[in-house]
């Protein structure tokens, strides 16, 4: 029971919900960029939320199923096909043996997650299957997926929702139900909620004004560690070196050149740049689905609203899970 990567596309890697507990040794949390979509893909397949999934960045991926399997695709950035049949996202899919899933361009979104029922059999390194390429750990040999990589399934597929699929002539099965889209994917301006960062007060008046009142473009020099933003430059009131302290996903730090960088999933654990803002944790998945070239604007919120928004996502996920367990 396995799949084989025929083409990795722009970039594909094995991820889960991250490698927790080792940040004091400099090991980033990492994991799926859009953890909401990765979790949903697993929930749809009846898996543990932390099962390894394949993160596909944009399009061009091609994967053959060596055996028939239940799977799900959640996220954005591509459309998925088997021959001429477009596969819907957010639904449980039955894929016949020797089918090839190919992804093509979609203007909206940036990353999609493929899960299989039962999960992929990927060795855990320090408690996680997440690929972290700078240290060469996780996934398959600590690197992104390449042509020929085979990922075995963990176990026989036994599924709550195996019932009642809509069967297409090609043998592909699609569940009647689907889960809600919890991540709003946009091709236009992404509105991202943000809170003043720990060093906000150290920036000059113009910078304090600009961060919440101007538009930025996500640079093509962005990756899983961070999104570079193009737009206004930022200046400290007084140029002083900062003593390094912990940073994490969502921190907006400003380099010596004045360019903001939003730290993403593979963010290093410690940083020495002033932090002008931090993104509400509930909006990280939205950012992960926002591709280079797209404009973003920060909308200022307070600590309390940020927590409320985060809790709302946590609750929404719980509802999806409960809802699916009641689905026949």
């Amino acid at each position, binding site marked *: 029971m396995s799949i084989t990567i025929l083409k990795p596309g722009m970039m594909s890697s094995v991820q889960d919900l991250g490698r927790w507990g*080792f940040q*004091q*040794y*400099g090991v980033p949390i990492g994991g799926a960029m859009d953890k909401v979509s990765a979790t949903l893909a697993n929930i749809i397949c009846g898996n543990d939320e932390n099962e390894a999934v394949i993160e596909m960045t944009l399009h061009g991926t091609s994967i053959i199923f060596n055996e028939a399997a239940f799977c799900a695709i959640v996220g954005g950035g591509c459309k998925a096909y088997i021959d001429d049949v477009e596969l819907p996202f957010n639904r449980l899919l039955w894929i016949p043996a020797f089918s090839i899933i190919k992804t093509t361009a979609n203007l909206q979104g940036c990353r999609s997650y493929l899960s299989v029922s039962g999960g992929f059999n990927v060795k855990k390194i320090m408690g996680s299957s997440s690929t972290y390429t700078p*240290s060469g750990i996780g996934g398959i040999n600590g690197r992104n997926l390449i042509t020929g990589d085979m990922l075995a399934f963990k176990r026989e597929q036994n599924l709550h929702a195996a019932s009642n699929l809509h069967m297409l002539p090609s043998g592909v099965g699609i569940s009647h139900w689907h889960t809600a889209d919890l991540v709003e994917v946009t091709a236009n301006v992404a509105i991202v909620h943000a809170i003043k960062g*720990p060093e906000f007060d150290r920036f000059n008046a113009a910078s304090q004004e600009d961060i919440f009142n101007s538009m930025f473009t996500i640079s093509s020099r962005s990756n899983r560690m961070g999104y570079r933003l193009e737009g206004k430059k930022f200046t400290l009131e007084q140029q002083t070196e900062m003593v*390094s302290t912990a940073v*994490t996903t969502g921190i907006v730090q400003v380099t010596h050149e004045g360019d903001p960088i939003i730290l993403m999933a593979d963010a290093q654990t410690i940083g020495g740049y002033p932090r002008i803002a*931090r993104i509400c944790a509930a909006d990280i998945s939205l950012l992960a689905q926002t591709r280079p070239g797209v404009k973003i604007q920060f909308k200022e919120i307070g600590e309390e609203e940020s927590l409320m928004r985060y*809790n709302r996502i946590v609750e929404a996920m719980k509802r999806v899970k409960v809802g699916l367990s009641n689905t026949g």
Partner: protein
Amino acid sequence: MLIPRIYNIHDRAITIEFSAAISEATNLQVIALQHAIESNPFKGFIECVPAYGSLTVYFSEQVSAVAVRSWLSDLSAQVSNISLATEGKQISIPVCYDPSLGTDLPWVSSHLNLSLEEIISLHTSVAYRVYMIGFIPGFPYMGTLPEQLEVPRKQTPSLKIPMGSVAIAGKQTGIYPAEVPGGWQVIGRTPLKMFDPSQSPCSFLNAGDLVTFMPITLDAFNQYP
């Protein structure tokens, strides 16, 4: 007593900042607080990240951020009173200071007007405190370097610094655990592995450890088991 600044860096992570400067006393306090939390973790606690003058605490949705914040505030006030006897391990690290491995030795030597022998003798003359591990997995930030050895970072970082490189910058010294780009001046190399995911802990050094460097010959480096 220092009154710490407490702030969120994430909806599920709070930083207690004792000082925005590098000092051994503050770092001792950071490690003491880390040990106090880890030895008696609250419900929902995930992990601590010590830095020079701050400790960051990650927690799950099992606990409210407001509760964690007030609990940390109380605890950090107590920690300044409790014993700081949380000394780390004392570790001696072999380093080969041959210019074929310490590739920036010629530049450092001419910049500081010191001979190779003087550089080695200065670098091995003190015990360094590991203030924190970061930048990349297993990279120790250590200090304080003798003043005569202070050099600036490179104008343009090197694209590839070999694994095990021992380097200096400002008041700090560090060891590159993997081949990565970096801006510190490389003065030697250790045959020891600083990061090994198959070991527990995965990092050879921990925040709070005391490190001394022991010079070894190129032959000894090459024959290291």
